[in-house]
């Protein structure tokens, strides 16, 4: 019977090494097998690199252009990080406001729901016009908007998760609103905020990257990918893609680590 996953995340059990082997080994084996198959396919069928480069070629290009990949990663990564921080702060603050002021919550609900389903990157061109096509601001804002949505929803959920028995307890202590918030509401909400951050982390990277397609200054992985692709250097394009994957993983792992750290003592789950 399946164990049924609660949080998607690579779990490194604190148990013995056999637990570790069981968790890490199957995906790693599958991955290695897939790479070998891929390389085999490319070599045996003599597929041209401009159609599908083999993994070894990509690895070659990656190491050869490491400096450029890193430079691009720093630009995109910085935009993603700024967007992440900005979106998270605004998301948490507005969620707190929504939890406190019902009318605000009702006004915000349809707007945030719409932002969630709308392609935010469509705003990229007008943002470039508003903030200047030479600035990274537009990309950071796109990332921030993408981050805002999951952080807002998850924080709001967490703020509403206070158990009735804890609410009664605070009332029996004649605790002031602020005391109740500090003692019960905020600690209950914290794990949810970090869940929202985890979801938002890879979104931030991808949004920052895609925003580069719609214009803006040179620099950043998105721009590098498109320029490599347009000069038909697909091995290089894939190398940049690899760089973006690593960047996304970095953000995700950091957020996941933070979440695991904080949610040790979650009231629910």
């Amino acid at each position, binding site marked *: 019977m399946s164990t049924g996953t609660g949080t998607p995340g690579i779990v490194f059990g604190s148990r013995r090494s056999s637990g570790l082997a069981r968790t890490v080994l199957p995906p790693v084996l599958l991955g290695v097998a897939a790479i070998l198959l891929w390389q085999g396919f490319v070599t045996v069928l003599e597929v041209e690199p401009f159609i599908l480069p083999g993994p070894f070629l990509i690895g070659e290009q990656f190491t050869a252009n490491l400096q450029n990949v890193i430079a691009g990663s720093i630009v995109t990564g910085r935009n993603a990080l700024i967007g992440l921080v900005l979106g998270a702060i605004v998301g948490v603050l507005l969620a707190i406001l929504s939890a406190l002021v019902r009318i605000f919550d009702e006004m915000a609900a349809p707007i945030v729901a719409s932002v969630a389903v709308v392609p935010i990157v469509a705003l990229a061109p007008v943002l470039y016009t508003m903030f200047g096509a030479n600035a990274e601001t537009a990309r950071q804002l796109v990332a921030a908007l993408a981050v805002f949505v999951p952080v807002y929803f998850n924080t709001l959920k967490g703020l509403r998760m206070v158990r009735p028995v804890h609410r009664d307890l605070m009332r029996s202590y*004649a605790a002031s609103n602020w005391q109740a918030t500090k003692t019960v509401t905020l600690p209950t909400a914290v794990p949810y905020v970090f869940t929202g951050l985890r979801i938002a982390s890879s979104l931030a990277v991808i949004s920052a990257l895609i925003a580069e397609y719609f214009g803006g200054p040179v620099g950043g992985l998105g721009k590098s990918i498109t320029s490599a692709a347009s000069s038909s250097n697909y091995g290089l394009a894939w190398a940049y893609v690899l760089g973006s994957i690593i960047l996304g993983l970095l953000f995700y792992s950091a957020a996941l680590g933070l979440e695991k750290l904080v949610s040790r003592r979650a009231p629910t789950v």
Partner: protein
Amino acid sequence: MTTAATPVQHAVAVTDVSRVFAGRKGASVTALDAVSLTVAPGEFVSLIGPSGCGKSTLMRLIADLDTPTSGSIEVFGKSAKQARIDQDYGIVFQQAGLLPWRTVAGNIELPLELHGADKAARRERAAELIELVGLTDFTAHYPDQLSGGMQQRVAIARSLAESPSLLLMDEPFGALDEMTRERMQNELVRICAETGAAVVFVTHSIPEAVFLSNRVVVMSPRPGRIRDVLGVNLGRMSDRGENLREDEEFFHSVSRVRELLHGSTPTGARGVENR
């Protein structure tokens, strides 16, 4: 402290209290219908009855977690709201309601913290209470590391933190198995003997009500009313030990309560005191 008007102040005085919940589409539920009850200082009173008889509602009204639709409630001569603000009572819920991110000590210190006690005083008081409930080895543990019975012990210790003269307990042992339950009852009796607090105790269990109480209030549902009140003559708190459950008088009291619950007049002498 006595006033000139009343010679002995009641711990709890419920006068003609009704609580009606408005339901959807006009249907309403009368959880309590003109209920009156008094609890003397230091007295242990149990509320027992089938589901829907309003015993938990009554306790919540006394705790000012809810307001009566009509009638009045006085706790130590003040309104229920004032008593809550003055922190005259301690409360224990059925789910222990411990904060999972605080240790045992942290949970017990919670009310002291909220009401401005300084760190040293808090720590000392918490240590005292932890010893009272016999959990000294678990001071730094978190609730998820404790069993249900232990969590309830922490909840009880927490309720005693500010040495209240009234304890309100809503089926605190309801989620425990029978053996643990009996052990906890023994503990509670001992604690009550030491602190001398009045107790309003909600329960489903007849033996539990009889073992712990000075009086048992039998309630009936739809609408919630007090059917009868039975005095339990099994001695003072400090005299009630484990062997009490084998006592003949204990079995008689249990039978009488059971008869009252079923709505028939109990045979034999019954000690109903209307104060």
